[in-house]
């Protein structure tokens, strides 16, 4: 973005485009998240069997978290590598702990 050959007008134009794109993505992900929430509540209301229900709910939840992190908290943008490393590192440790507890202690 720091291209020297750009005039201020070109830069402003570019940024406006960028912001428009950003806005579009946020609206889409927001709509999808609301849709997912309705689906989740709907499935519970319709008494769908728990074998199907629980994994689907978890999947929808994970996708919503990813939307939240990547689109609303800007993890998709540049300069978030360290954040990603730390988060996935922590996640790996936490999941490992949960796996161990469920398989070794409580099975």
């Amino acid at each position: 973005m720091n291209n020297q050959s750009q005039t201020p007008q070109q830069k402003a134009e570019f940024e406006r485009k960028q912001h428009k794109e950003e806005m579009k993505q946020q609206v889409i992900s927001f709509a999808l998240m609301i849709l997912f929430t309705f689906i989740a509540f709907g499935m519970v209301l319709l008494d769908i069997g728990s074998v199907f229900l629980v994994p689907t709910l978890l999947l929808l939840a994970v996708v919503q978290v990813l939307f939240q992190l990547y689109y609303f908290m800007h993890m998709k943008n540049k300069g978030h590598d360290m954040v990603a490393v730390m988060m996935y590192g922590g996640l790996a440790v936490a999941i490992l702990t949960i796996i161990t507890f469920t398989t070794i202690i409580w099975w």
Partner: protein
Amino acid sequence: MSTALAQNRGLGAMIWDYLTTVDHKKIAHLYLVAGGFFFLIGGLEAMLIRIQLMKPDNDFISAGLYNEMITMHGTTMIFLAAMPLIFALMNAVVPLQIGARDVAFPFLNSLGFWLFLFGGVILNVSWFTGGAPDAGWTNYAPLSTVSPGHGVDYYVMGLQISGAGTLIGGINFLVTIVNMRAPGMTYMRMPLFTWAVFVTSALILFAFPALTVGLFLMMFDRMFGSVFFDTAAGGNAIIWEHLFWIFGHPEVYILILPLFGAFSDIFSTFSKKRLFGYSAMVFATVLIGFLGFMVWAHHMFTVGMGPIANSIFAVATMAIAVPTGIKIFNWMFTMWGGNIKMTAAMLWSVAFIPSFTIGGMTGVMLAAAAADYQYHDTYFVVGHFHYVIVGGVVFGLFAALHYWWPKMFGKVLNEKLGKLAFWPFFIGFHLTFFIQHFLGLMGMPRRYWVFLEGQGLEAGNLISTIGAFLMAIGTVIFLVNVVYTSVKAKKVSGDPWDGRTLEWSIPSPPPHYNFTQTPLVRGLDPLWVEKSEGKKGMTPAEPLGDIHMPNASILPFLISLGLFIAGFGFIYQVDNKAWLILVFLGMGLTLGSMLTRSLKDDLGHHIHKEELEKDLEKGAGE
């Protein structure tokens, strides 16, 4: 400058200065003094243990007191000696190595120290109030949940408070290293000590919460009638073991990794070569940190987890030998063909290589799950972990202190006394712990307060005790050296070792804003890059200008003091609910101080350009 002012105003002002300081260099001094003090207490406990085991059927100390000794020796050495001494080095060196003026959160830095100190004091107060913790440093349930008296309560509260301090410190250094590197200092140009501290801080961030959770469960079991670890009521005692070791195994890497980093800097400086295989060293450090989280259950092979779990953890454990091996070879290749100068720091570092490698070798032996059934809970294990912790961490601390002492205090520790301290400690260390492997193989169990006559254990134990005395002599000579140096030695320049990294480009001890102008980093070993182009110092990355610095504050001390008071309330409210008053008072002080901190704007102060120019004329920041 605040130091000079404090000296003019006498002792009271100096104490106030240290109580309120947020300067990372002074916090390093505090960590060093407190950690050194606890190191001596832990050493004293070790001596009492060794005197008790000097001859068969000894009755020097009673069985109960012996249990308290081994518990407090382990707990003190890990949490109250090794950790703060490492934090002393981190505080003293990391901001200087990355070209920063302080850590990211100076207030939290001070809070971390005071939490650690008050936690440590709580733990040791137990000696005077009817018995220290006595369930081993691992504090396994159900032994700990049924331990009579308040000893284990002190363990829980003390570690909870000091653990919070450590967690704060770890987060602080993560943010510092990510955000505050000087212009040009990319990740792959960071000195290896900084890299190691970075990985260590990440380990602290991920490992300590497991301890916090474990300690909370233990606290509720002992003080508020919950039954998390009570099998009879449907709880599970193994949960404590898992939580403790999920924290405890990364903890041993938290201890050793910063010193791996320090050794790397020392080897490279005193061999006059850049570190051999820098990127492989970084990779190995990260890999050790990563693998460190997947091996904790090797402490629990005999618990009965089953052959599959045992095999997985055995293989993962053995895998750690690979990155560690990479490091050992890289250090040797760094020395290979170098212009080696055998200073005291180098002597400790060279001695570390074979000592630590022996510890690593017995580690691989212990990792073999089937064989571990033989070694488990014998002196073989004691020998193993003292080889890695003393041969790695303690040797590393001595080496790093010799190396960075001039940066911290402006004076080089006396080299002759340094080497004189090394030899008795080195010989004593091997005498004490090498023979313990064989005592273990002969069947001597850990944690027993006596052994019997006629089982062939007499000679080995006597040798071990003699070795312990030699180590004590070495430590005393080091202390004499510290006093002698501070009285007799002359001030040295900012760069006594012909160093390679940024901390050697500024005066010793550094002015409290560290860098008059932030340096521009142009490569790995930035100072060496400049030196090899015939320049004297770093090229500045900014014009001379006002420097913004944080204000000192007493609030971290008060927050920690509040938790200290509340800790006693929690411990004793079991006997009498009136003690809850202390909880309210203490928490009131803590929360009140936190509220003050939140509501009162503290924007820090500026050091003006004119003052900096005056300092420059006096020779600072050349």
